[in-house]
């Protein structure tokens, strides 16, 4: 047990409890982890259940297409995000060109748009009645059917949509890796006879490879988890399949079994990510960084660099955001009414409850890990961290199954003994929703707070103690001021993630309980894309907050380089 921890001081907690295996704090950690593990556990258990002939039916009809579509989606998106992410990352790190400073953070903006919203927007812009095709027809005097136009609502379209909003993961991580590389390594390669391009792919890319793969695996997880885009585009994948099996075929067991297959795919990606992070430790080139002097690019090369960085921002953020704004202006007099404010109210309510709960749990967990640094606590933290990899659809199914069972059992017991029917106590309530959000988004706040807490080094506690502060004073005068920022960041990140979340909310929400995300989804599915713009725009605007947090923390941590 750590003797450095704040609460391990004599007197604060009796020594025998301190050394006991059943310390209440440890028990609490185990309890939280077990509760949050229930959904995945239930999903995995479904393997042993019999789903009757539904599984056989799925196997014979759609399973292969789910697998093929998911693989095509993952590889297509993966390929696109590599070029969309790495090239701008390299350019803004190594060169000076017009607009570099703004572009270096603007490249993160597409993160603010959920994939389903960009999908609705481009569909509205590019379909037969959309502005682009109308313009083409007027300009060339074509009639409908005279010309070929790519269909956005297709597998290819889904690949482009997802890549446009997910490339920032690769951009972010590869840029961090490029900045960390010692410039000397590239220069050595030049003196050994490699030109700039050869040096890029023989030295810079291999060195950044672990970071690039880590970014790529995050993109793959998000792609596999996507529901909104593939549902709207009619691409049959696991997430839509789980939905259809549950609500269409009415088989919760078969839906859970599909989820198991999806989880296995995601497990592969998680392993890939863990492995690449392991590798990254050995790829540090130097502790001695010379100041990066960016090479100026002028004239044609400068313009090409600017264009290469502007394109992802334009297609991933500016164009869809402007289109949303135009639609919102056309329709908001109809859309913004009492009902719209109720949507905002519901969204904020859910997001606020989830973020406050997440932060409180996170503080409990993070301090638990600090006080009892042993294999069990670090396993619990790592285990909880994996929640982010689990698609919302899967979590929703995993929450619904045990809660429904609980409701039925309570109801049966009450009817038997009290003669009253309790109906749905847990499922179909906000409680179930919040629980699902915690499983998925607790890792987000855990990361943020853990990073902050690790900056409060144990020696600072000891220094405070040596100056006569007691435990309460140390918390108040050292920990709270140092952690404030990370706690706020954690709360904001969870807030925004919950606000954007679609599939879990869709499945678990109470009857007729609408949020901004749900309303956007419903309007889009009724082909009322222009009306969907107002709630969508609200989500995008809120989504910009984490982008600002992110770019600020980057520029602060790399003051030596920027």
């Amino acid at each position, binding site marked *: 047990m750590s003797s450095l921890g704040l609460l391990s001081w004599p007197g604060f907690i009796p020594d025998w409890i301190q050394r006991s295996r059943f310390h209440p704090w440890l028990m609490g950690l185990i309890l939280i982890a077990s509760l949050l593990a229930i959904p995945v556990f239930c999903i995995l258990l479904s393997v042993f259940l019999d789903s009757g002939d539904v599984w056989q039916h799925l196997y014979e009809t759609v399973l292969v297409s789910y697998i093929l579509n998911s693989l095509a989606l993952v590889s297509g998106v993966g390929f696109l995000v590599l070029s969309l992410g790495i090239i701008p990352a390299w350019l803004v790190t190594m060169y000076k060109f017009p607009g570099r400073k703004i572009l270096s953070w603007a490249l993160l903006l597409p993160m603010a748009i959920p994939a389903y919203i960009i999908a609705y927007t481009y569909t509205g812009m590019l379909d037969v009645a959309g502005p682009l095709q109308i313009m083409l027809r007027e300009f060339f005097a074509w009639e409908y059917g005279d010309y070929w136009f790519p269909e956005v609502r297709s597998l290819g379209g889904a690949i482009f949509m997802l890549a446009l909003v997910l490339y920032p993961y690769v951009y972010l991580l590869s840029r961090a890796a490029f900045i960390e590389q*010692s410039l*000397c*390594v590239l*220069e*050595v*390669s*030049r*003196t*050994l*006879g*490699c*030109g700039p391009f050869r040096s890029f792919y023989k*030295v810079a890319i*291999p*060195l950044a*490879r672990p970071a690039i793969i880590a970014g790529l695996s995050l993109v793959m997880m998000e792609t596999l988890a996507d529901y909104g885009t593939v549902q709207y585009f009619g691409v049959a994948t696991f997430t839509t399949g789980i939905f259809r099996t549950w609500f269409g075929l009415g088989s919760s067991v078969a839906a859970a079994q599909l989820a198991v297959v999806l989880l296995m795919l995601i497990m592969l990606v998680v392993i890939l990510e863990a492995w690449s992070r392991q590798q990254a430790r*050995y*790829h*540090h*080139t*130097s*502790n*001695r960084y010379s100041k990066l*002097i960016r090479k100026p690019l002028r004239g044609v090369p400068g313009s090409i660099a600017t264009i290469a960085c502007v394109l992802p921002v334009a297609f991933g953020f500016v164009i869809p955001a402007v289109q949303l704004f135009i639609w919102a202006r056309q329709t908001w007099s109809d859309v913004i009414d009492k009902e719209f404010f109720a949507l905002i109210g519901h969204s904020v309510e859910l997001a606020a409850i989830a973020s406050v709960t997440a932060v409180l749990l996170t503080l409990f967990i993070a301090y638990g890990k600090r006080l009892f640094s042993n294999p069990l606590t670090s396993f619990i933290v790592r285990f909880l961290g994996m929640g982010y990899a689990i698609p919302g659809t899967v979590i929703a199914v995993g929450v619904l199954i045990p809660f429904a069972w609980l409701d039925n059992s309570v109801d049966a017991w009450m009817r038997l003994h009290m003669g009253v029917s309790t109906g749905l106590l847990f499922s179909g309530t906000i409680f179930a929703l919040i629980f699902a959000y915690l499983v998925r988004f607790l890792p987000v706040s855990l990361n943020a707070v853990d990073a902050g807490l690790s900056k409060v080094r144990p020696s600072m506690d000891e220094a405070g103690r040596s100056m006569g502060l007691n435990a309460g004073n140390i918390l108040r005068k050292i920990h709270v001021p140092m952690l404030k920022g990370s706690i706020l960041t954690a709360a904001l990140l969870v807030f925004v993630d919950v606000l954007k979340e679609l599939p879990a909310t869709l499945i678990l929400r109470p009857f007729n309980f609408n949020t901004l995300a749900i309303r956007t989804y419903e309007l889009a599915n009724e082909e009322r894309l222009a009306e969907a713009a107002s709630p969508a725009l609200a989500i995008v605007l809120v989504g910009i907050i984490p982008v600002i947090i992110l770019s600020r923390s980057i520029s602060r941590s790399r003051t030596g380089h920027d």
Partner: protein
Amino acid sequence: MTNTLELRDVSVAIEERPIINSLSFSLEKGEIACLLGPSGCGKTTLLRTIAGFERPTTGEVWLESRLVSDEHIMVPVEDRKVGMVFQDYALFPHLNVKDNIAFGLQQMNSNERKARVEEMAELLEVSSFLNDYPHRLSGGQQQRVALARAIATRPNVLLLDEPFASLDIELREQIAKEMRTVLKANGVTAILVSHNQMEAFAMADTIGVMRDGALLQWDNAFTLYHRPVCTYVADFVGDGVFLPGKVINSTNVETELGIINGGQSHGFAFDDEVIVLIRPDDIIHDDSSGMQAKVQDKAFRGAEFLYTLALESGLQVLTLVPSHHNHALDESIGIRLEIDHLVVFPAQ
């Protein structure tokens, strides 16, 4: 004999700020030179200009009788055949030792490449860890790999940027000597950048002392020490003090320590006010001497003491004395002068 490397009036500016001012020197094949100077004097910039990472604003750089840099011409780094060893060695962390050494040998076929890697590994004694990755190596091992990688390509000139700065201080001189042996045995022309004169003395045939982007003196170690061209070089290289004096005739100067005869003309006129460089080895401790000085400070150096002595006027001189002469502070001891090289500068 043609020069392997020649710089003619090279000036360099980085982001409009002048770093190197009209600097010239040349190196013969197999010669090892050291650019010596405090940090910020431009020595690393000069090295990078030779490598081709910086472009001179004026002047020319010639490598093997080929003009590689001037205001208009800029041969790319990769076409210059220069080897470079960086301060942090800059080994490729994703490649093992063998592949690091082979990195520059793309043009060779695989048999030649293998033979060359083995030859280098043997030369620099890295054969036992050829398959290890850089993060597993000690600083000294990394440095030998970096050197092997740089000279495997048989570069026209090898550039070493503070190659000993990352090593333990005790190791530096010994490794510098070993490196010199390797380079000399293979006829490698090399330029080393350092702020440490001991490294320079151990490695280089010729040393260039730099200050503020200018080359003050380009000579061997002995000449730098005994015949510095200016007070800056005299001060930067070795210990010593300046004693004020007056010129008596074309060879003699009178100082508080008496009349010093340099044996050759010092070039100053009668009655000129001058200062004379007195090295610690110019003053001999001699109990029988009538000239006395008081011990003000002493530093134990193992075999000898470096005493700081105060003359009657209060002026200080230094002397190296075998360490069995252990004198107390404030004790007066006998000294005499034994000056082989009279170094005179105008009084400031």
